[in-house]
């Protein structure tokens, strides 16, 4: 699914990733750890095709529309409601039975009752839940998750852990986290960036 050879990324003079080799098969679950600034987010952005490598080779065998990215930012329009945000992405990703799927995700993540409120009024935890709905909406083959448990309350953490377990069998994951122990039961590989 992902194959990197000598992958390097620099921003100006700053070296973020240096000659990284990586091989991930479909169904793998890679947990990426490392200190702040070690390149975890950059690796996810490289895999998503949002930035180009400075050197080396990176091949991702998932088309653009089959990648789900959960970034630091929720990537949601604060002026729009959860329904409007998910409807926008559902249309762009051509999600079949869009309304049913949106309704199911909002129910699952406890956002159904606030579906018509502006996302800008949400707490960070609620935005993270909505961002998870956005990421999972089009049932991506490859999930790139940057600190997925960030800002979630205990119930949200439990919910997401169960969801990851369910998705684990049929999806490929690259998850950047500062808390690898939580994902240890799911992980098939671990990468520590220096």
């Amino acid at each position, binding site marked *: 699914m992902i194959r990197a050879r000598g992958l390097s990324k620099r921003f100006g003079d700053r070296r973020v990733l240096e000659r990284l080799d990586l091989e991930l098969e479909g169904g793998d679950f890679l947990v990426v750890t490392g200190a702040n600034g070690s390149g975890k987010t950059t690796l996810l952005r490289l895999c998503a*095709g949002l930035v180009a490598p400075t050197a080396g080779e990176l091949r991702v065998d998932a088309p653009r529309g089959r990648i789900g990215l959960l970034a630091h930012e929720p*990537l*949601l*329009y604060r002026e729009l409601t959860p329904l409007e945000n998910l409807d926008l992405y559902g249309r762009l990703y*051509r999600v079949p039975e869009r309304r049913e799927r949106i309704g199911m995700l909002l129910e699952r993540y406890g956002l159904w009752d606030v579906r018509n409120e502006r996302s800008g009024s949400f707490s960070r935890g609620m935005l993270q839940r909505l961002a998870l709905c956005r990421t999972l909406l089009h049932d991506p083959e490859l999930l790139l998750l940057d600190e997925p448990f960030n800002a979630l309350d205990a119930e949200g953490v439990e919910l997401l852990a169960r969801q990851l377990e369910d998705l684990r069998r049929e999806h490929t994951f690259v998850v950047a986290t500062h808390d690898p122990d939580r994902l240890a039961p799911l992980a098939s590989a671990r990468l520590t960036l220096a």
Partner: protein
Amino acid sequence: MTYLQDLATLARKDFLLELRARDTVPAMLLFVVATLVVFHFALPESSSNLAAYGLLWVALVFTALLGLVRAFSSERDQGLLDALVLAPCDRSAIWLAKALAMLGFLAVAELVALPAFSIFFSGVDGATIAGVALADIGICAVGTLLAAMAAASRTRELLLPLLFLPLAVPIVVGGVGASVVDDGGRYLVLLAVYDVIFAIICWASFEYVVTE
């Protein structure tokens, strides 16, 4: 067909954002009316209509610039361009939808500006209206692409005018020409040619602007 559906989805989103936030069109309206009021008092009574037409075009270009500076503000502030770029739609649809939204906002501002110009200075003829319509297309096509480029920069408020104004010179030449010359047809042709050339360039190059 899919392209048109994506375009409609993205343009609808941009109009909806403006309806909710109301931070672009009201600012453009206030600016263009205030500018025309200032010009009304700044121009001596004995000055000709030619000078007034020149000032109308200055007001329109800077009003458009005001809107363009905010064109990608939601995407920039919340990192949303990444999400749009990741979607499996043709990336040029993002540019075209945003340009159409800007065209709508500018048209609303002009619906107020042109009657206000008629009140303060003199009536506008068909050639001027045609010139404004053609100029709007060029302004929004070029301006939206440049706004996307500038959005990635910390100095975007400075960068966008520096990039946009030189490229808007042919639009001002064409617009003023169409307004003040008796036979302004050739200036309208100039504006139409500018629109076609720059719309194609912007449509084809947007993908490279939003990806590294």
